[in-house]
Every structure is written in structure tokens, then in C-alpha cells.
């Protein structure tokens, strides 16, 4: 086999003795043409194929010859002549290695199959919810156990996670809420000015931030930030079999990994929500002052008089629930990671999407609930 691939493939049709002469390179470069020309031959007129002028033959060329001349091929039973020892052994190797295509599992397009797949999706969705509930159960059980056996509780770990999920999230949460306040005041003022009701901008800002936006947007940011971090941390431990190692050493992943994380979120999310509320009100007040000339004193008076404390309560009572959702989703996703890096990435993004979605669904449920009981 020489390296020269410049030699073009050539085919001389059957002569008197029924011999087809091939010449040049019969390689992966020329196999498409070669195969087409060989297929175009009149099979009845051909007795043998002569390779003595072929300068280079690779597996692709050998494959073309073997598939065409073996049984059920177009040129079935035609002899291959003039192959050197190397070429002959290559032909033999390819002949032996030819795969037997097994029918791949058929993709069934019928309605029944579609229904079946749909049912399986629904079923796996329900199983996912069940698994999340189970993780919530594990968390509560281990938490109760920690209350009875305080020595098993990891206080250091809890403090560490409080710092990670709470303290370090303060700047981004505060900035986000401040900007939301600014936007609300600005948009509200342009609309309300048309009716000469500028002063109601205070109510608009206060109610929307305290009741909904402050805590919801905080939860969304935390879901993006913390659910992914939980999944990545627990998932990479799962990937390197650290979780299995913990189990064999008698350490419970629930107690050591889930409780500190979810509890830290449970403690810190209401605090972050409160900070977001304050920052949002501050942003709104600032914009109202600049844009509408509502002085801070007037803003405060209007805020205290016009806005019931129940709004703050309605907002903050959601925080612990959101915290549980985010924490449980993050930990559960981490435990689903398999031993490859792709699954870690997939589960991390799954965790974020699921957590944000679940938080919004829970918020909707809360809204309906509070509307019904009339708070």
C-alpha cells in the first residue's frame, strides 16, 4: 500500500474472457464512483474481476468488492482475481468482519404506541413527584432525628451553607429588588399621571413588591443560584462514588448533605425576601421622589396608612415553602446524577428549570388560596 492517492480509479468493461480490469486506487476516496461503476456492469457478461492493476486497496474498496460479489450481491459468485497477498488478506478480513445488520428496534408510529409513550411520560412525571415527596419526607425525618439527637446535627455545615445560600446572595437579590422597585415606580407613574393619581404609585409599589414580586423574584434568583449549586455539589459527589463511600462508613447522606442545605435555605430565604422587600421599597421611593416629587416622608406616611401589614405577611409566609421546594428539587436532582459528566450537566439544568417552574406554580396556588380566604 503506497501513500499515493493521486492515482485515479479506472474500470475497463468486460473483455472477451469476461474479465473486468480495475486499475488505480480503490480506496475510501474513490469508493463511491467505483461502486457505482461496478453496479452498472452487466452481471451476466462478467466472469471475474481482475485487481492486478490496482495500486492501492483499503477496507472501503475491499468492502465494495466483497459486498457486491458475495451471495445476494449484484455480482454474486464472480471471482476476484489478481489480488496480491496483502489485498487477499484484506479482502478476507473484511469478508469475515461484515456486520449482519440486525433490525433495530422499530419505532412504532401507531396511535396505540403514541398513547403508550404518553402514558409512560405521565407515569414518570407522577413518579418524579412521588420521589420529590419522598425526599421531603427524608428531610423532615432526619430533621426530627436531629432534634432528638442534637449531636448528630452538623451545625458547622449549616452555618457554612447559610453563608453560601444567604449572605452571598444578598448583593444580587438586593440589586434585583431595587431595580424592580425603580421600574415599578417609573411605569406606574407614567400610567397613573394620566388620571392625576400619582400618589397611588406608593400603593402600587408597596402591594406588588410586598405581596408578590419581592419574594417571588428572590425565590427565582435563589432557585437559579442555589438549586444548581446543590445539584452540582451532590451530583459530583455521587459521580465520584463519595455518596456510596459515606453510606459504607455509616454516614447518612440525608443527615449530612440534605439537612444542612435545605435547612439553610429554609432559614435564609425569608431573610432574603425581607431584604428584597426593603430594597424594592427603597428603589420605588427613590424613583417616586425623582420622577413624581413624592418626598420620602410622604412616601412613608402613605405606605404606613395605605398598606395593610397583611401584605407583608402574605408575601413572607410563602418563603419557607419556596425554600423547601428549591432545596428538595436541588438535592433530588443531585442524587439522580450517574457516573458520567453529561448527566451532571443535564441534571443541573433540570434542577434549575424544575425549581423555578415549581416555585411559580406554588406562587399561583398561594394567590388562589389567599384570594379565596380574602386576605
Amino acid at each position, binding site marked *: 500500500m503506497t501513500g499515493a492517492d493521486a492515482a485515479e480509479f479506472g474500470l475497463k468493461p468486460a473483455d472477451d474472457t469476461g474479465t473486468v480490469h480495475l486499475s488505480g486506487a480503490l480506496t*475510501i476516496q474513490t469508493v463511491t464512483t467505483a461502486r457505482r461503476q461496478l453496479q452498472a456492469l452487466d452481471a451476466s457478461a462478467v466472469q471475474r474481476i481482475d485487481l492486478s492493476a490496482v495500486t492501492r486497496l483499503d477496507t472501503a474498496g475491499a468492502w465494495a468488492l466483497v459486498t457486491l460479489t458475495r451471495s445476494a450481491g449484484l455480482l454474486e459468485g464472480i471471482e476476484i482475481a489478481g489480488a496480491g497477498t496483502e489485498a487477499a*488478506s*484484506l479482502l478476507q478480513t473484511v469478508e469475515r468482519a461484515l456486520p449482519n445488520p440486525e433490525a433495530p428496534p422499530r419505532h412504532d408510529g401507531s396511535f396505540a404506541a403514541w398513547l403508550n409513550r404518553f402514558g409512560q411520560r405521565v407515569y414518570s412525571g407522577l413518579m418524579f413527584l412521588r420521589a420529590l415527596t419522598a425526599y421531603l419526607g427524608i428531610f423532615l425525618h432526619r430533621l426530627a432525628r436531629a432534634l432528638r439527637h442534637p449531636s448528630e446535627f452538623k451545625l458547622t455545615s449549616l452555618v457554612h451553607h447559610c453563608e453560601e445560600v444567604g449572605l452571598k446572595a444578598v448583593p444580587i437579590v438586593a440589586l434585583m429588588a431595587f431595580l424592580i422597585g425603580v421600574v415599578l415606580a417609573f411605569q406606574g407613574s407614567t400610567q397613573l399621571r394620566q388620571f392625576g393619581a400619582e400618589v397611588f404609585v406608593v400603593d402600587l409599589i408597596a402591594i406588588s413588591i410586598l405581596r408578590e414580586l419581592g419574594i417571588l423574584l428572590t425565590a427565582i434568583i435563589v432557585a437559579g443560584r442555589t438549586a444548581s449549586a446543590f445539584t452540582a455539589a451532590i451530583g459530583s459527589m455521587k459521580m465520584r462514588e463519595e455518596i456510596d463511600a459515606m453510606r459504607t462508613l455509616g454516614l447518612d447522606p440525608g443527615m449530612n448533605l440534605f439537612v444542612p442545605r435545605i435547612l439553610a435555605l429554609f432559614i435564609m430565604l425569608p431573610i432574603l425576601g425581607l431584604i428584597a422587600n426593603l430594597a424594592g421599597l427603597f428603589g420605588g421611593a427613590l424613583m417616586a421622589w425623582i420622577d413624581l416629587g413624592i418626598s420620602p416622608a410622604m412616601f412613608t406616611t402613605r405606605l404606613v396608612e395605605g398598606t395593610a401589614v397583611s401584605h407583608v405577611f402574605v408575601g413572607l409566609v410563602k418563603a419557607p415553602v419556596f425554600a423547601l421546594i428549591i432545596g428538595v428539587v436541588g438535592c433530588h436532582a443531585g442524587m439522580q446524577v450517574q457516573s458520567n459528566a453529561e448527566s451532571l450537566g443535564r441534571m443541573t439544568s433540570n434542577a434549575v428549570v424544575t425549581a423555578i417552574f415549581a416555585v411559580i406554580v406554588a406562587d399561583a396556588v398561594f394567590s388562589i388560596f389567599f384570594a379565596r380566604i380574602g386576605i
Partner: protein
Amino acid sequence: MTEREVVIKLRGIRNQFGRQVVHEDLDLDVYRGEILGVVGGSGTGKSVLLRTIAGLQKPAAGSVDVLGTDVLNADEDTRQKLESRWGVMFQDGALFSSLTVRENVEVPMRAIPGLDPQIRRDLADLKISMVGLQYLAGDKYPSELSGGMRKRAGLARALALDPDIVFLDEPTAGLDPIGASAFDQLIRGLSHSLGLTVFLVTHDLDTLHATCDRIAVLAERKVLVTGSMADMLEVDHPWVHEYFHGPRARAAVPDKTKGD
């Protein structure tokens, strides 16, 4: 010995990372059609040497000549031509995780102009079968395969274009003894029937015995000795002696070659 064509020629190679010199003044010849096993202790730069020849690591000094091409100073076109004439199998296969095994094997073939897609598919199936994988393995993703199957699939991809040379980085590491010896036979068989030159980095004494025509020992920043297994047993350099006469080596050496 008759004059044999040298396909890889290394002269005066020097590789260093910061202050740490891995290779210094390293020379090595690899002949056409042979299976060369490269051994050496951890950190002697076996994989670095492989990466140097394959053009993934630029040496600080020296020349690398593969199939008559100066790898370090070749222009883009020449290099590309050269790259289609060698295949590299990385330790864990290094398959593209978003593609099925068949698509992985097809990747190098996509560079061939005018290659019919159906033929490309069939050729990929042929390569998959040549490395001893089931036909249906072609539809699987790398994450669904075992370590041994991933290595085989990696080899299939390295062989996609019928290269003259294949580089294998620890082909049997992490395989069970049965899988490892099957892989040894596979390499031997393919090298024989396809006329491959194999450059093989390994720790596995059984692989050295079962497959390699010649062994090169990396130590003291250079290729210390090259030769057949029998030659290696004669070398009295302490590391080489320990390596080929240690308890594991004795277990791997068949009785007839047991020297002492």
C-alpha cells in the same frame, strides 16, 4: 536485519513544562508494520511523547518526522493530509458524547469529498464490526457503553480512514483480564491484516508480551533502550531490570523466556 522503512523518526526531542524537563535529547525510530510498545514509570512522559508525535504537544526542541513529513514545520494542507493517515485512540475512547457510536466513526469520513452517505454508514458499520462490537452498538451513545466497548469504539474511529499508523494510549488500562487479552488479540489481528503500524503506550506487561514486536523504555528523560522482550530481560539498568523481573513481570513472562 534488512533495511525497513522508518515511519516515525524522532530526533533530539525536548519537552518541558515550566522548569520540569520531561524529555531531553530523545531519539526514537518506529518501523512500518511493527507494533511498538512504549513503557516507563509514571511521570516519564509516555503520553506526552504520544501527544508530541500526534502534533498535540509542541516540543521545545527537536524534530518529528512522520511518514516523511516534518510534522512541526508542515503547512496546514500537508498536516491535514498527514492527519488522515494516522488515527489516535485516547485512554477512554474520547468519543463525542452527543453522537452515537456510528456517527462517531463517521466523523473522520465526512472529510472525504463525494463519499456517498449510505456507503459512509455501511463503512462505519464495517469498522464497528471489525473491532468486535455488535451491530446494534452502532446506535448507542457512548454513555450507554462499558469501558471496554468505549475503547473498541474509539479504536473503530481511529481506524475509520484506514490509517498507516495508529496511536493507542493505554489500550488495556481498566479492562478485566479477559477483555484486555481480547483487546491485545484485536490489535495484533488488525495490525496484521491491515498492515498497521502501532504505537502503543502501556503499563500492561501482558500486553507487551502478547502484542508488541519491539519495546521502547522511557527513563531518564529519553528512550533508554529499545528491543524485543528477550532483549529487555538482558538490560541491567536498575529500573528496567526491576520492571521486567519484578513479581508481576515474572507472572506475565511465559516459562521459556524466564531468564534467571
